[in-house]
C-alpha cells in the first residue's frame, strides 16, 4: 500500500484544494496517470500517480482544502494483494509536536510526517497550521481576482525568501547568435509550420547541455546542504496572460532532440496558460530559464527560485557592431546572465557555464 498525498508544488505551497478525482476506487492506475485535479495558487494542476497499482480508496472529498502532505488516497501496488486499508493507525509523533498540534488546533491525522520513519515533527505541525486546513467544510472556487492576489503573494514569499536566504552572485556574457540564427532559418525552411523551431529552443538546449559540464548549478538546496540532480529538468518561466508567472519543467531537457523539445515546449507553454499543468512539471525543475527579450530587455538579473540554486536569463536579440577577424561587422547578439547561489558555486564555475552556453550556440547543428 502507498499513500497518495497532497504534493508540494513549489517552495511556498502550504495547501491545495482537491477539485476532482479522475479515477475511481478499484480502477487501475499506471505511473504517470492523472488521477486527480488540485487547485493551488498556480491554478488547476493535474496530479500524477507516482506508481502503478490500483486506486484502493479515496480519503478526501472534492472541493476540500487540505495541507501539503495530507493523505488523499491509498494506492495498492501492482502485483500485491488487496490487503485491508488501514483506516487509523499509531501515529509517530513526539510529545512536543503533539502538544503544539493541540495548541494550534491541528488534526494529527491530516499531517504527513517528514521525520524518521514518517514521524510527525514540530515543523510538520507548523506547516499544517499555517495552511489553515478546512477539512470539514468544502470550499468554493476562488474568484479570479483572489487567485491573482494569492499568486502574487506566493511569488512575493518565494522571492523574499530567496533574497533573504540565498547569497546571489551574477555573471553575464554577450553571445554572437548569427551562426545559430542562420542555421535556424535554414532548418525551418525544411520544416512544416507546426514543426518549426523558435530560437528559444536552442537556448534551452544549450543551457541543458552546459549543465552537464557544470553540474553543481543543476541542484537543489535542501536543509543545509546542496543535493545535485542527476536529471536535467529546465524550468521555463512563462508569463500568464492574466498576470503572474509560472516556471514548469521541461523534463530531461538535455536528452531531447530539438524537434521534440520544441513540441514539448509549445505544449508546456500552452498548458501553462490554459491552467492545465501536471504536478511533476511544477515539482521537478532543477534550474530555471527566463527570457525577457520580447519585452525589450537587454539584460536579465533574475532571482533564484528556491530550492533551486541557479537561474539563467536571456535578453533580446540586438544588432551590434562585432569584431570578427579584425573587421567590424554587424552581428545579432544577445546577453546571457547567470544568477547563482554562492553557497553552491562561485563565479569561476559560473563563468565556465556561460562560456559553455556560448560555445554550444556556435555549433547549433550539434544541439
Amino acid at each position, binding site marked *: 500500500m502507498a499513500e497518495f498525498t497532497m504534493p508540494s508544488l513549489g517552495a511556498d505551497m502550504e495547501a491545495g484544494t482537491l477539485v476532482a478525482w479522475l479515477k475511481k476506487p478499484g480502477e487501475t492506475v499506471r505511473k504517470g496517470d492523472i488521477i486527480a485535479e488540485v487547485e493551488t495558487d498556480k491554478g488547476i494542476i493535474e496530479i500524477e500517480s507516482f506508481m502503478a497499482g490500483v486506486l484502493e480508496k479515496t480519503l478526501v472529498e472534492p472541493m476540500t482544502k487540505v495541507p501539503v502532505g495530507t493523505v488523499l488516497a491509498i494506492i495498492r501496488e501492482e502485483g500485491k494483494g488487496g490487503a485491508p486499508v488501514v483506516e487509523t493507525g499509531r501515529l509517530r509523533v513526539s510529545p512536543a509536536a503533539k502538544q503544539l498540534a493541540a495548541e494550534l488546533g491541528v488534526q494529527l491525522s491530516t499531517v504527513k510526517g517528514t521525520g524518521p520513519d514518517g514521524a510527525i515533527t514540530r515543523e510538520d505541525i507548523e506547516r499544517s497550521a499555517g495552511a489553515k486546513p478546512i477539512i470539514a467544510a468544502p470550499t468554493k472556487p476562488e474568484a479570479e481576482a483572489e487567485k491573482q492576489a494569492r499568486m502574487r503573494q506566493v511569488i512575493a514569499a518565494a522571492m523574499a525568501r530567496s533574497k533573504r536566504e540565498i547569497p546571489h552572485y551574477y555573471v553575464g556574457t554577450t553571445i554572437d547568435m548569427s551562426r545559430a540564427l542562420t542555421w535556424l*532559418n535554414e532548418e*525551418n*525552411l525544411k520544416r512544416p*509550420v*507546426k514543426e*518549426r523551431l*523558435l530560437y*528559444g529552443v536552442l537556448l534551452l538546449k544549450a543551457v541543458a547541455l552546459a549543465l552537464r559540464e557544470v553540474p553543481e548549478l543543476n541542484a537543489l538546496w535542501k536543509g543545509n546542504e546542496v543535493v545535485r540532480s542527476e536529471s536535467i529538468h529546465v524550468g521555463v518561466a512563462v*508569463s500568464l*496572460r*492574466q498576470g503572474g508567472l509560472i516556471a514548469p519543467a521541461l523534463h530531461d531537457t538535455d536528452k531531447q532532440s530539438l524537434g521534440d523539445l520544441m513540441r514539448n*515546449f*509549445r505544449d508546456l*507553454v*500552452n498548458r501553462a496558460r490554459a491552467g492545465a499543468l501536471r504536478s511533476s512539471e511544477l515539482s521537478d525543475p532543477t534550474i530555471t530559464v527566463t527570457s525577457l527579450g*520580447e519585452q525589450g530587455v537587454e539584460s536579465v538579473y533574475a532571482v533564484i527560485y528556491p530550492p533551486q540554486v541557479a537561474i539563467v536569463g536571456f535578453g533580446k536579440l540586438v544588432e551590434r557592431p562585432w569584431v570578427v577577424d579584425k573587421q567590424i561587422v554587424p552581428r545579432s547578439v544577445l546577453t546571457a546572465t547567470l544568477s547563482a547561489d554562492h553557497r553552491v558555486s562561485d563565479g569561476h564555475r559560473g563563468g565556465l557555464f556561460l562560456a559553455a552556453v556560448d560555445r554550444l550556440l556556435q555549433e547549433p547543428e550539434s544541439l
Partner: protein
Amino acid sequence: MTQKLTTDEITNTVLRALGEIAPEADLAAIKPGVSFRDQLDIDSMDFLNFVIAVHEALHVEIPEADYPKLITLNGCVEYLSSRV
C-alpha cells in the same frame, strides 16, 4: 470545386485564431493597421500558435520569411486573400 473566400471570411478566421491565443481580448476593438503584438501583448509562442491556427483553418502554406506580413489584421487579410 473550391470557392474563393471573401475578405470578411478571412477576417473572421484571423480574429478567431487571435481569440484562441488571447481569449480576454476584445476582438471588435482590434485596430486593423496596428500590430497584434502592440495591441494584445503576444509573444513569439503566441504568434507561432496564431500562424499554425491560420494555416490549419485556411490550408495556406506560410513560409517563415512571410511572418512579418502577418503582424496586423490588414496585413493578414491582404496576404491571405492572394493565397486562398
